[in-house]
């Protein structure tokens, strides 16, 4: 299925300049998410009240009065604590300490984790070993106990405690940055920067920091939240500085007087929860905003149903008496796009294939050749619309013209049984966790209804029929133990295992070496001579077409520009696009000369 999605997204991609869809930046996407907007606004309010505490606070947060543990009054909007101090003022001033602690912890953790992770990920070797070892020790330490020990040693200094807490949290950053760096280090653009003569420092600054920036910001938001909860917990346990106005100390005070004035506990708890919650939600929203960035292509190609259903004249011809094996008539496949329009990937294609012949569908990427093949197989993505035309297999319709989708019930009995498929990437079409034998046997027992031992015998016969030298060994091997050429032979064996009438081969040799390609084409040709199937071969290679096809259909931008006998098309192409493609072929051209007459202007095709 992935091939389908790839093909579509390749087409959804703007082919030329100026077609690019403007997408909002990270900030834009963050604010489009209500969770993001709410958390940012809340944090902004908290930060502002901390900064402006001196102006906003109605009272001196440290001034004790005789009005002890009052509820909310006109004088003390949120009431007073056990020393008669104004709770609102203490909350405002307490925000300073709380936010400062969170900032200290996050900054310290980043200052240690980020550079260490960059160095370990980029250079590896001994530094990686050493720092990973140190990280493991740090992660094994019980944080709360370390913080209690620090407090016992140096007294109630909350900022020093938070520095230590930052150190304890640094492994999270280290691991994050190290993993991200390792994955980017081997990218070709980093190699290119090295060849361009950039120093390691500038490579890290330009190419790697950009990649780790996003996860580090997300992690920082999380760590800030955790730091606040740790700090408040320490103070709640009575380990903070009792003279300072902080939220943890206030919770402690409120808790001790919970029966006399429950509200005194509520306010600081609410402040702590809201702040931590905002940090966590912000981290989530940031993650969503950044991940959306990565998935742009899939979103544009694989979502959104059309808002309006256009009236489509479903021209249905009468069923032919003398039916072709498979016939496609005026097929039109469209994908809804964001914004309401639809993108046409196949635009009125008509062709047929009979038993004992190979139809080649040729075209460049984005021509719709794979889409046509997948439509016959009934494997189009869910949002694909067949807006006109019909596909007939032995005269039987497989398109439901009413819903403009593939009639899956019509195809279920055909797919695997009558129509089979040879994919482009042999390796990704074999499940790595099952042996090759079991992947061949299971479809046969299911579809043909034969016993397992019969299926095993047949599978071994098939493997030797596709030219595998030692069928028994390949039968019990796992996919990773065989080469790409062998894997493709296995898939061909699978494709013919249930005696299909039609085989659809989508670029079956593109991923193979040229010597292996020749052998695989030999296998396909020999099998057809013996079994008389009809074959649809999708390819971009005219050499492959010349080797195996009887008839050819040339596709460009979803349209079939020309079709006919292979000799006619290759020797006397009528359409200028076919002529251009053949002109691009290197065979028989004088070396070291220009291929395209229009190469001076051809750059912006």
């Amino acid at each position, binding site marked *: 299925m992935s091939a389908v999605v790839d093909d579509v997204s390749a087409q959804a991609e703007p082919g030329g300049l100026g077609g690019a869809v403007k997408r909002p930046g990270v900030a834009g996407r963050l604010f489009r998410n209500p969770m993001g907007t709410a958390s940012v606004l809340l944090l902004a309010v908290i930060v502002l009240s901390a900064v402006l505490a001196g102006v906003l606070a109605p009272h001196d947060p440290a001034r004790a009065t005789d009005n002890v543990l009052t509820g909310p009054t006109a004088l003390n909007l949120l009431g007073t604590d056990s020393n008669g101090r104004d709770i609102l003022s203490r909350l405002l001033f307490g925000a300073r300490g709380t936010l400062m602690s969170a900032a200290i912890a996050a900054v310290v953790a980043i200052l240690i984790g980020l550079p260490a992770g960059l160095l370990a990920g980029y250079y590896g070797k001994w530094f990686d070993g050493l720092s990973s070892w140190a990280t493991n020790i740090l992660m094994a330490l019980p944080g709360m106990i370390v913080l209690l020990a620090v407090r016992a040693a140096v007294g109630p200094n909350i900022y020093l405690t938070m520095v230590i807490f930052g150190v304890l949290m640094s492994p999270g950053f280290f691991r994050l940055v190290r993993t991200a760096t390792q994955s980017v280090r081997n990218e070709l653009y980093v190699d290119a920067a090295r060849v361009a003569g950039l120093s390691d420092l500038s490579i890290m600054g330009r190419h790697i920091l950009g*990649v780790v920036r996003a996860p580090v910001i997300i992690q920082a938001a999380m760590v800030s939240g955790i730091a606040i909860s740790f700090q408040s917990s320490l103070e709640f346990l009575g380990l903070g500085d009792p003279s300072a106005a902080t939220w943890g100390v206030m919770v402690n005070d409120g808790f001790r007087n919970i029966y006399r004035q429950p509200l005194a506990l509520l306010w600081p708890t609410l402040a702590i929860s809201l702040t931590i919650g905002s940090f966590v939600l912000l981290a989530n929203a940031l993650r969503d905003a950044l991940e959306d960035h990565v998935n742009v292509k899939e979103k544009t190609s694989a979502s959104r149903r059309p808002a309006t259903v256009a009236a489509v004249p479903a021209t249905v011809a009468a069923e032919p008496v003398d039916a072709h094996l498979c016939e496609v008539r005026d097929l039109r496949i469209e994908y809804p796009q964001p914004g309401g329009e639809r993108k046409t990937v196949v635009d009125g294609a008509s062709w047929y294939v009979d038993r004992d012949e190979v139809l080649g569908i040729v075209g460049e990427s984005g021509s719709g050749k794979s889409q046509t093949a997948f439509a016959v197989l009934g494997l189009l993505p869910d949002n694909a619309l067949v807006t006109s035309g019909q596909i007939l297999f032995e005269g039987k319709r497989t398109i439901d013209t009413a819903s403009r989708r593939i009639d899956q019930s019509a195809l279920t009995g055909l797919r695997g049984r009558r129509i089979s498929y040879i994919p482009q990437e042999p390796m990704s079409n074999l499940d790595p966790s099952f042996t090759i034998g079991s992947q061949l046997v299971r479809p046969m027992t299911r579809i043909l209804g034969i016993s397992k031992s019969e299926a095993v015998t047949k599978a071994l016969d098939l493997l030797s029929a596709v030219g595998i030298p030692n069928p028994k060994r390949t039968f019990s091997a796992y996919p990773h133990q065989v080469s790409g050429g062998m894997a493709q032979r296995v898939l061909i064996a699978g494709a013919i295992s249930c005696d299909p009438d039609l085989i659809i081969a989508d670029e079956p040799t593109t991923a193979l070496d040229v010597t292996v390609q020749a052998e695989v084409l030999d296998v396909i040709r020999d099998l057809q001579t013996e079994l008389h199937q009809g074959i649809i071969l999708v390819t971009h290679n005219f050499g492959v077409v010349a080797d195996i096809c009887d008839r050819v259909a040339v596709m460009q931008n979803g349209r079939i520009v020309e079709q006919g006998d292979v000799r006619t098309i290759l020797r006397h192409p009528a359409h200028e696009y076919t002529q251009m493609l053949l002109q691009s072929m290197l065979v028989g051209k004088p070396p070291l000369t220009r291929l395209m007459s229009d190469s001076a202007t051809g750059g912006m095709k």
Partner: protein
Amino acid sequence: MNAHGSEDPAEVLDDIVGHIPPVSATPARGKHLLDIVDLRVAYPTKGFLSRPVEVLHGVSVAVEEGRTMGLVGESGSGKTTLGRAVLGLAPVTGGSITFDGHEIAHASRSERRKMAADIQVVFQDPYTSLNPSMTIGDILSEPLGSQGISGAEARKRVRNLLDRVKLPVDSMDRLPREFSGGQRQRVAIARALALEPRLIVCDEPVSALDLSTQARVLDLLLEIQEQTGVSYLFVSHDLDVIRHVSHRVAVMYKGEIVEQGLSGKVTESPDHPYTRRLMLASPVPDPDQQAKRREERRAFAAKVASQLGEPAA
């Protein structure tokens, strides 16, 4: 191996005189810009006391000034590793790589940085060889910045580069994802040209491209060579591509060079059975000629198999 320059020295000299600006150091051996002798590369493997895996077993090949050396081979032949060794991206364990008279096989990072102006690269995959988050302008000015060229001068050079690879000037402010594969490969070529190098390692530069795009990119590479006299070490699995762009060709098989010589000779009437097999496996776009070639290939297969020690599949 015969001396690389035995064929038509006058023409080669003409080329040098015609295209190469005077350089400070005289090349050690006249016309060989790059000389690789008995090169061995071995990659370390994971695990305690495990032996490195050698992927190049003593490879010797040379690139002449202003000319193209085509390296052809199938997957796993080591052709890409050879290119990466020249770029300093593969661990050299033996032999020498001499560029313009200087030994570079074990050059340090700072020596490599100085060589950046001379040796550049175009990678296979135009989708991963450009940083997706950098604009085309930033990508192209990066090599310039590393050599101390910035500001207005850098922008002028970037505009010239875009012009040379036939991309519009407004590409500067765009991101790689706004471009098609062929256009991205043009950007990668422009980046390689930024420092006016004398050698460009082209690692399968057209194998990810459509047929017509491939033709245009090959045209561009040939045109650039005509204009600037740059040398190419051109790595590809496609014999047709190699024949089209190369002056000399070396055929790699399992980490060794099995045949090298003039392009026409090696690609049209090869001596080594592996090269012959490669040639016969490459299909021609005419059904009847291809049927003939297929028969030749099948007839040849058994003979080849015995010489290479492989079963005739």
